[in-house]
């Protein structure tokens, strides 16, 4: 069965989510949205799905209509409970167990930047939207995926101009515990070309797999730092027929991931 890169990524994300976990869907991030919902319908019947300031379970919904915006109240129709926004920050038990974080820069140690690009904070060349909730969410969440929808050496940089979410700092397996950060840190960095993980000791990014048709050389040419490369880099695992059926028949009927 053929699949798009976005479908491949959604399936990859889904496989990292475990039954029973509590995971928030960002309506405005179609690929992570699909990944979370795929996990839920495929192997996570006891996952709690956060959606538009509600929590719910969607097993019984034949088709999950997508909504474009984060707080679209139409997505609250399935609510089992509501979450006041500030309440999320009252306990990590109310936060997502897994989180998806983007960045205008992401560095080789998985630190990410949503403030802006430039050397002088008072005169940024490019002002970003702001940290949103990423600083706190990445402090607490069990693990998170860095996710980019373009693979660009200006984004995947040696060192971020500013850091809004601390990944592995300047490296080392104890980088987070030294600071007292309870969360598990970034686990993967996923791009349209490949998946990076973090080498166990240095916590530098390591090329874990390339998507079908992508070469290691291509990844290196479009990455602003030198990731760790294993002697043999496998292909990112293809979605199964089961996964593709759920994706196309229930999660992404409108084909956002195919466009």
């Amino acid at each position, binding site marked *: 069965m053929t699949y798009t890169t976005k479908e491949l990524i959604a399936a990859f994300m889904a496989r990292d989510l475990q039954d029973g976990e509590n995971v928030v869907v960002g309506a405005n991030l179609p690929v992570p949205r699909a990944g979370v919902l795929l996990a839920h319908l495929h192997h996570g019947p006891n996952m709690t799905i956060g959606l538009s300031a509600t929590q719910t379970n969607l097993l019984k919904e034949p088709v999950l209509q997508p909504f474009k915006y984060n707080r*679209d109240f139409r997505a609250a129709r399935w609510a089992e409970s509501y979450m006041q926004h500030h309440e999320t920050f009252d306990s990590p038990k109310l936060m997502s167990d897994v989180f998806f974080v983007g960045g205008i820069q992401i560095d080789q140690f998985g630190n990410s930047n949503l403030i802006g690009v430039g050397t002088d904070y008072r005169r*940024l060349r490019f*002002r970003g939207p*702001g940290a949103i909730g990423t*600083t706190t969410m990445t402090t607490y969440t069990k693990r998170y995926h860095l996710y980019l929808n373009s693979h660009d050496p200006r984004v995947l940089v040696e060192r971020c101009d500013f*850091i809004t979410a601390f990944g592995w700092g300047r490296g080392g397996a104890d980088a987070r515990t030294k600071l007292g950060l309870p969360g598990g840190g970034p686990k993967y960095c996923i791009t349209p070309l490949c998946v990076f993980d973090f080498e166990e000791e240095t916590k530098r990014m390591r090329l874990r797999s390339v998507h079908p048709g992508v070469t290691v050389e291509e990844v290196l040419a479009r990455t602003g730092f030198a990731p760790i490369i294993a002697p043999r880099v496998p292909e990112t695992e293809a979605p199964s027929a089961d996964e593709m059926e759920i994706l196309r028949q229930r999660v992404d009927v409108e084909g956002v991931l195919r466009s």
Partner: protein
Amino acid sequence: MTGERRSRIVDEIQAAARVTDGMAIVIGGHIMSSHPMAVIRQIIKQGTKNLTVIGAASAGLEVDLLVGAGCARRVITPYVGGEALAPIGPFYQAAVQRGEIDVWECDEGIYYTALRAAALKLPFLPTLSGLGTSLPEVNPDLRLFNDPITGRPLVAVPPLQPDVALIHAAVADAYGNVQFVGSGMGDRAHHRAAVTTIVTVERVVPNEEIRKNPLATAVWNVDAVVRAPYGSHPYQSPGFYLHDEDHLNEYLRAARAAVQGDRRPFAEYLDRYILGPANHAEYLQTVGFPRILSLHEV
């Protein structure tokens, strides 16, 4: 003997008049939903300047509009944008890049921590959020310090006290009992921290309606209630209407032209929708019933 219970209903013009030059205001809602636009438009119309605009924890383009209209001296919110429509507000981005407004850099967790410190009249609250990041560097109000018990590093967040909280909700009675459809976003945190709270609502309901479901009363004892049907337009109002994507795109075109140097479309936008209409009803008349009634859910 005892008098009558006083109504707290005011109109949007009276409500906006409580916001004066140099104040700190905090605006409720969340990105594309639930902003008290009837009052915000009036604040622009009355020409208020030098505001510290505390947007929602994730603010929409209403903060961008206040920047574009020249009302804001300082912006505090970890996000200003319109999601897929605009990853960042054009006026906000340009004003920050040009150093025209101050930013108090934070994330949502630090933002609520600062509001909580204000509510509790504490000189600071500690957080783990921001350790190892640039936030304490770019926002000198955030101080690294060592926990007095274990010596561990923490970030000290000072209080952030709004003079006025502006909230949009579903219904309220005349006495300041406010109910949302849905979660109410982070609006309770705004009310707790602010000196004064003004709420615009889709409908004013009898007190007896409030008493039918007191568990739904999210905020009580607010200072003023403004009857503003469609008062969150062009943003969503949960349970009532969807956001107006066409209107937001019209705004964004004008804003993008303005930051490129052509302020004419934005001047026209302001004239047409904000400076021209005498009040909220006239604003809606300008937008028009056909457009407003098209923003339905199903």
